[in-house]
């Protein structure tokens, strides 16, 4: 772990992440999140995990965040709209929750930071990662893929509800009948 690079990168990640939640424009926050993803890839590089770093940029910054931006720009957001909640209760609960999470992670990190494994040996290249996935942890890996597949199938089933289908049919009928009248 290169400390000289780690601290600037961590500071950058924290600043960018704060920007994500403080920016009033949703496109700006999405872009700051892209920046944070790339900075996290930099931390992976410090840990000698080149493969993970490249995947981080390729998948998160290059594919998932593009879809995020796609949705953010196609839904209607006015520029002067402020994403600030005014309810006292939600503010207090938010501060309480994030504060407790912060201390939880802080003490966990303090406990585990002394004996971190040498990740570079395992995750540096595709071969090491493949051996971890397909030899040591093949069953959890397959279970995770099944969970993801189930989630995807669920989304497809939910977005194809019969009500929606009927409505869309009606819409096409409307267009057709309108065309006939004209």
């Amino acid at each position, binding site marked *: 772990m290169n400390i000289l690079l780690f601290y600037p990168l961590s500071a950058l990640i924290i600043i960018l992440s704060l920007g994500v939640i403080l920016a009033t*424009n949703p*496109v*700006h926050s999405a*872009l700051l999140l*892209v920046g944070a993803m790339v900075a996290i890839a930099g931390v992976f590089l410090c840990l000698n995990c*080149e*493969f993970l*770093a*490249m*995947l981080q*940029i*390729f998948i998160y*910054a*290059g*594919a998932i965040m*593009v*879809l995020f*931006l*796609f949705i953010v*720009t*196609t839904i209607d957001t006015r520029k002067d709209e402020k994403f600030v909640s005014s309810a006292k209760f939600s503010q207090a609960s938010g501060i309480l929750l994030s504060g407790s999470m912060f201390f939880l992670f802080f003490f966990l990190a303090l406990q585990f930071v002394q004996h971190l494994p040498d990740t570079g040996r395992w995750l*540096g*290249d*595709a071969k090491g990662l493949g051996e971890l996935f397909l030899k040591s942890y093949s069953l959890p890996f397959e279970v995770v893929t099944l969970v993801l597949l189930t989630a995807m199938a669920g989304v497809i089933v939910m977005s194809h509800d019969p009500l929606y289908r009927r409505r869309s049919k009606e819409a096409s009928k409307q267009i057709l009948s309108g065309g006939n009248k004209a």
Partner: protein
Amino acid sequence: MTIFEGFFLVALIGIKVGVMVVCVMLCMAMMTLVERRFLAFMQCRLGPNQVGYFGILQPFADGLKNLFKEDFTPAGADKILYPLAPIIALIPALTAFAVIPFGPGIPEVANLLLMLEDKLLGVKSDLSSVVTLTAGDINVGVLFFMAVVAMEIYGVFLGGWSSNSKYSLLGGLRASAQMISYELSMTLSVLSIVMISGTLRLGDIVHMQERGWFIIIQPIGFVIFLICMLAETNRSPFDLPEAESELVAGFHTEYSSLKFAMFFMAEYVAMIGISSFCTTLYLGGFNGPFGLGSSILWFGMKTFLLLFFFIHVRATLPRFRYDQLMDFGWKTLLPLSLLNLMLTGFFLTVFR
């Protein structure tokens, strides 16, 4: 590491990067001229032939012209992202060249560099810089290139969004949807190459092709890559993001002066970059055909052939309709590339 050693290391990398960027930019300038002259030839026109011999100075005249044009910012444009978008478009396009092995290493230069490093830094440097002529032959080169190409979407998309114009926004949305769709098939076809070679280092992939190019055992993959290459760089017949009959000029409608020039440069640099990548993966990189030695000239010739293919397609084929583009990408190209991947795996397990 002392400050002097650090400075030396940075200077060394800086020289490498500087030489490469200048070469790529010159190629880009010449590409614009070649494209205009060849399109003119295909359309029975003359094309720009007045500035310099054969119009060879035309790209520089165009650059100067763009420099002196009015730099216009539309009302309601995003203050930060509008000027930033052309830069975001150009930087990943140039960064992608960092891992491309252009040619076999020049022994004299490499030995000099190694000697300097040994004397000044006292370190034995990575020998890969001697074997191939490249800025950084990293062990995840293929992934690096794909990741950087994936980042190219942002410039186009942000240019479209920040202009506060409906034509621009539609162009940007089209570009991002198209690039995401075709990136899948492209990655899958590249994956077949990685399966065969068993490495992600581009230098090793080139050295494995000394006896035979990968296009011989991956013909389907090559064709898929070729089509995705056109779609990834928003070139004809997939140039829907800048369809002039529907969207004026697409994502760069509101841009003028140097900002427009930077979008223009980004497109051509991305074209050269992805052609170099295709040459490296499928056409043997800097290896000559029939064992005719290896030289940077072979690399240049093959890359130019691919670039010529880009221009020829633009002069020949009409533009796709948007639903045709999506149908083709998801229903034809993606299953085909999956089939190619499965066939590659099958033959690898049977014949190895």
